[in-house]
């Protein structure tokens, strides 16, 4: 078991190194003069000279790479050109929004996708199965931004003046504010200190913050704002999870041990949940891990539509403004996060599949 974990962790190191190399190359592959690409065509020679010196672009490539690696490992992603602020700081401010949205979307996808897949497999070739599969195939083919816009139209306009009305944009209504829990409890933490930044990260997850601080009005409002983007973002992962669960369940339900379990006279529900579902779970968990990538990419689109100030929208704005330090920093963090989540998923197999534990 330990050997498996160590092997898997070691395997991730070259991949993470590769990610850093790719993002480094990417920033240097800007066609033409990188200074003019970032600061605009009108940037003078003096300004460009200073910019190149500040960014280290006047040094040989291997030296630039060394500096880049050193900076990354010390959490320094450089300064944003547009905001003249450290990219790491912006990232820490924006990441909680995306994590909250992504987590809710993922929970939704799992809570609906897995039962739908199990039911479709158990009732194979019935109307329920056909219905689930049609919905899943449609869901997986649907552009997330299109669904988001349609949901906004339906719930914000068509259902206006009904109890089903939902806000089409933003994280919280005007007039309400999510005061950080450490300020509510008057912990007296100095602004800008390490502990402040750490706690602020969690306080920026509004659902978590309002539960901790017991602000139920804000909680209700935040959830209302989250429903549409989370539903839009969860559609593709939900469809993929449902398809994979069905296919994995069908595979397991054909096995001899399921027939044996039934022959023993066990209740069908017990056979399905205890014998079949547990064994069908492994490929489903792999797929769930891979959905984190879909969620991050989908966040760029969903946050842009629903006006969420998260990492995805920031990345889009940075690309439009050609703010490469942000693009580079955000790409590194998202890719490394994606690798880390998949590493955790792989390590979780040890607890789910005894064969790996014994290997």
């Amino acid at each position: 078991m330990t050997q498996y974990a160590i092997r898997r962790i070691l395997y991730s190191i070259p991949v993470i190194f590769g990610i850093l190399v790719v993002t480094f190359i990417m920033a240097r592959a800007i066609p033409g003069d990188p200074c003019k690409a970032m600061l605009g065509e009108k940037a003078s020679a003096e300004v460009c000279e200073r910019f190149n010196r500040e960014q280290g672009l006047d040094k040989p490539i291997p030296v630039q790479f060394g500096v880049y690696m050193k900076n990354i490992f010390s959490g320094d992603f450089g300064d944003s050109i547009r905001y003249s602020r450290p990219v790491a700081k912006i990232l820490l401010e924006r990441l909680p929004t995306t994590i909250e949205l992504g987590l809710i979307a993922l929970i939704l996808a799992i809570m609906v996708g897995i039962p739908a897949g199990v039911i479709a497999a158990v009732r194979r070739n019935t109307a329920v199965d056909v219905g689930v599969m049609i919905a899943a195939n449609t869901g997986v083919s649907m552009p997330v931004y299109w669904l988001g816009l349609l949901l906004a139209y339906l719930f914000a306009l068509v259902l206006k003046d009904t109890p089903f009305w939902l806000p089409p944009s933003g994280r919280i209504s005007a007039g309400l504010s999510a005061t950080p829990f450490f300020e509510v409890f008057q912990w007296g933490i100095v602004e800008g200190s390490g502990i402040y930044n750490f706690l602020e990260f969690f306080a920026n997850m509004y659902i978590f913050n309002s539960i901790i601080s017991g602000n139920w009005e804000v909680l209700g409002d935040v959830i209302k704002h989250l429903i549409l983007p989370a539903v839009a973002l969860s559609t593709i992962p939900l469809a993929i999870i449902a398809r994979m669960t069905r296919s994995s369940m069908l595979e397991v339900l054909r096995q001899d041990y399921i027939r044996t379990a039934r022959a023993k006279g066990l209740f069908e529900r017990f056979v399905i949940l205890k014998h079949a579902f547990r064994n069908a779970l492994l490929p489903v968990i792999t797929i769930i891990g891979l959905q984190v990538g879909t969620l991050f990419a989908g966040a760029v689109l969903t946050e842009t539509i629903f006006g969420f100030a998260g990492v995805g929208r920031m990345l889009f704005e940075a690309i439009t403004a050609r703010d490469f330090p942000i693009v580079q920093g955000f790409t590194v963090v998202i890719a490394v996060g994606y690798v880390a989540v998949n590493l955790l998923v792989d390590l979780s197999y040890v607890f789910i599949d005894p064969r790996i534990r014994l290997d």
Partner: protein
Amino acid sequence: MTTKIELLPNDSATDYRTNSLFRLTMRRIVRQRSAIIGGTILLFLVLVAIFAPAIAPFDPNFVLIGHEDIKRRSDPCIHLLGCPEDQPQHILGTDGNVRDVFSRVVFGTRISLMIGFTTVGFAILVGTLLGSLGGFLGGWIDNLIMRIMDVLLAFPSLLLAIAIVAVLGHGLQNALLAIGIVSIPVYARVVRASVLSVKEQEFVSASRALGGSPMHVLFRRILPNAIPPLIVQGTLGIATAILDAAALSFLGLGAQPPTAEWGTMLGTERNQVFTAPHLVFYPGLAIMITVLAFNLLGDGLRDAIDPRLKN
């Protein structure tokens, strides 16, 4: 006692024909409902793309101001469904620049199919080259190629495509290149796996023993085995490529206005969703139907040709 031996009605030539791999595969594909539905929709879309100039009543970029008495972003008007006769007929309405939305959606089929086939064609070509080289030669070349592929797979594909376009600059050509690049690893892996599974088999050894050059062995004996999984993966890949390209265009990073590309159409009119929802609805529906067609066809082909790919 005599034994009567009856000859089978088929002669050997007919037998060979009826049992050919191609016919067997086709028979299996025809039995897949999803492949038939997907294939039919796709055929329809291909016909729409080919005959777009005949189907569309207007040029996709033709601005109607000065030609018709019509407002910007006017609602769909179909005379048969009760729209007044004195109003010009635009079955999907007009957009913000007073262009016929139906014509733009019809011409958009060409661009979307072109995007799908071009990006996946490019990715299959490069992926096959890399995967076959890695699988066939093995050793450090294989290790190097596959580690690079692992790194590319470590990025969420749309995100990597966005980052590449951010570097190369906005535009359809760069978007196609970006989507092509991020799609390569999947095909490289599929081809490598096929090469590895057959390269030690007897028919390959026999080909070598008969004096076949490494290129001959690779291209004539080994690679044909990679074609079925490539077809399946390619069909599903086209769906993803169309979806990603439309997303890039929606964000303003892919096809640029006035190109009649579905993602661009959605992106430029997205702020009008509350006042003119038809401008958002129809291009999105077109994307969904096209992607669904490729997904259904890909699923059906997979079940018919290579069910192992299912998981």
